[in-house]
């Protein structure tokens, strides 16, 4: 088992608050790992440190054995880590296709011009936005903005895809579509780390889960085992249920 992502002793302090406290785990190539935990447990902070939008206060993040912790986000992006955001971030002044081209044009093997346009349209078709490339990004509905953001992350041709509550806020039908979409990505071999509260999605997608509470890792293992773990149940529901 070759680890694509290796995290050791990762720590982040905000003033006196330790948001992430010595978290270690690794993710193998091709794995889909769920990062779970109650609100405020530090999941998004971990994601932010992996993608480079936050610098760790301590610890190591390695991608393919190369230390990337502390690098600026654009360098990490070019190494092949792409992400979506908890609150969807679109580029409102661009069209839907142009939103995708941004990622194609600045990745390690960049595409530009007609090639980029064609690739953007293919990616849009893949996430269910086929033929809608010319629309203004800000006119899309919430689910379509999320789809577009996913297509933009995929356009980077990532080795590792980080999804931060990508399925949150979807209705049951959309959720089904969303889970199928991520499952198809998993089947195409992309390594994914996803922060998610929707248990249905976690059970369907993640072979393995890591659970955090109050900044520390409390469980790491096969999804079914982890969700039965008394300590995990205590973290989510309180001591009475364990």
């Amino acid at each position, binding site marked *: 088992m070759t680890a694509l992502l290796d995290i050791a002793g990762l720590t982040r302090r905000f003033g006196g608050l330790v948001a992430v406290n010595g978290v270690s785990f690794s993710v193998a190539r091709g794995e889909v790992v769920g990062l779970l935990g109650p609100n405020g447990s530090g999941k998004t902070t971990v994601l932010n440190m992996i993608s480079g939008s936050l610098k760790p206060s301590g610890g190591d993040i390695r991608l393919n054995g190369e230390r990337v912790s502390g690098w600026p986000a654009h360098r990490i992006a070019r190494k092949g880590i792409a992400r979506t955001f908890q609150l969807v971030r679109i580029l409102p002044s661009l069209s839907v296709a142009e939103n995708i081209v*941004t990622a194609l044009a600045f990745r390690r093997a960049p595409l530009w011009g007609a090639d980029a346009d064609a690739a953007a349209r293919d990616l849009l078709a893949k996430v269910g936005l086929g033929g809608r490339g010319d629309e203004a990004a800000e006119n899309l509905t919430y689910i379509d903005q999320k789809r577009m953001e996913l297509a933009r992350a995929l356009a980077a041709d990532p080795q590792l895809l980080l999804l931060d509550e990508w399925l949150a806020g979807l209705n049951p039908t959309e959720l089904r579509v969303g889970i199928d979409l991520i499952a198809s990505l998993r089947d195409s071999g992309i390594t994914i780390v996803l922060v998610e509260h929707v248990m249905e999605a976690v059970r369907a997608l993640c072979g393995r889960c890591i659970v955090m509470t109050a900044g520390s890792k409390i469980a790491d293992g096969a999804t079914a085992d982890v969700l039965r773990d008394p300590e995990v149940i205590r973290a989510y529901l309180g001591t009475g249920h364990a």
Partner: protein
Amino acid sequence: MKRIATAAGLITLVAALASAPFFLDAYGLGLMMGLAGYVTLATAWALFSGPTGYVSLATVAFVGIGAYCVAALSEVLPYPLVLLIAAGIGLAVALVVGLSTLRLSGVYFVIFTFGLAELIRQLVTFYEINVTGTLGRYIFLGITPEQIYWQLLALGIVTMLLRWWIGRSRIGLALKVIGDDEVVASHVGIDIARTKLALFAISATIMTLVGAIQAPRWTYVEPAIVFNPTVSFLTLIMALLGGATRLWGPLLGAVPLFLLFEWLSANFPNHYSILLGLLFILIVFALPKGVLSFIEQMWGKAHRTDDSGARS
């Protein structure tokens, strides 16, 4: 066909502008010179500030640097070399300033650039008083007004072409993404600091050249003249009036405003500043996105036959 027609039209326009000195009197030529200068400044300003949304009031700092280089060096060095040195100094100052300030955002950047122009003016004044002993300098160069005009025209055309090319290139897209959302920009692999710095430096170098080329026209320069902050404000308002994100916006803003300011300063010399201020307020209130966007909106309202949201 349409592209050929556009190209032919543009070439005719350039030829007409280039031959203007043969048909104009001294006043007309002076007007054309000023116009060419401000169109170039506004276009250069929009090159950086349009897509990034960073409002710079440092325009006159670079114009003044250019003018002062010519004033200080034109007696000892040949003119083309002086222009080259001026451009080099403008570029160097832009790089230093850019490295230290492009982290600032919003109003902090505006204030910094405004302060920068004042700082350079005070430094030059200090140097002139304490080291050379005189505040003003004379520029005696055998450069005719026609030659100044042609140089400004050429620089203006180069600036427009540069802006057109950047708008179609990856760096142009990078700027738009930065203008929209810097977090997304860095996460798709854009080196924000380097992109901004490159554009700021190009824009500032052009501004420096405008100042250097125009300097012989003034004959006498002193810090209060060549570092007059009104130049920065005029450039800014011209670009905003036309629309700083559009290729032709700064030009369409600069031409009418420049002519209007000329007319105002000729007819209301005592109330010029008041009228200028009122006009600034009016433009920012009435046309926050520029005339071009305004016309498009009006056009869109008049032709609201389908509301599919399709973009032209």
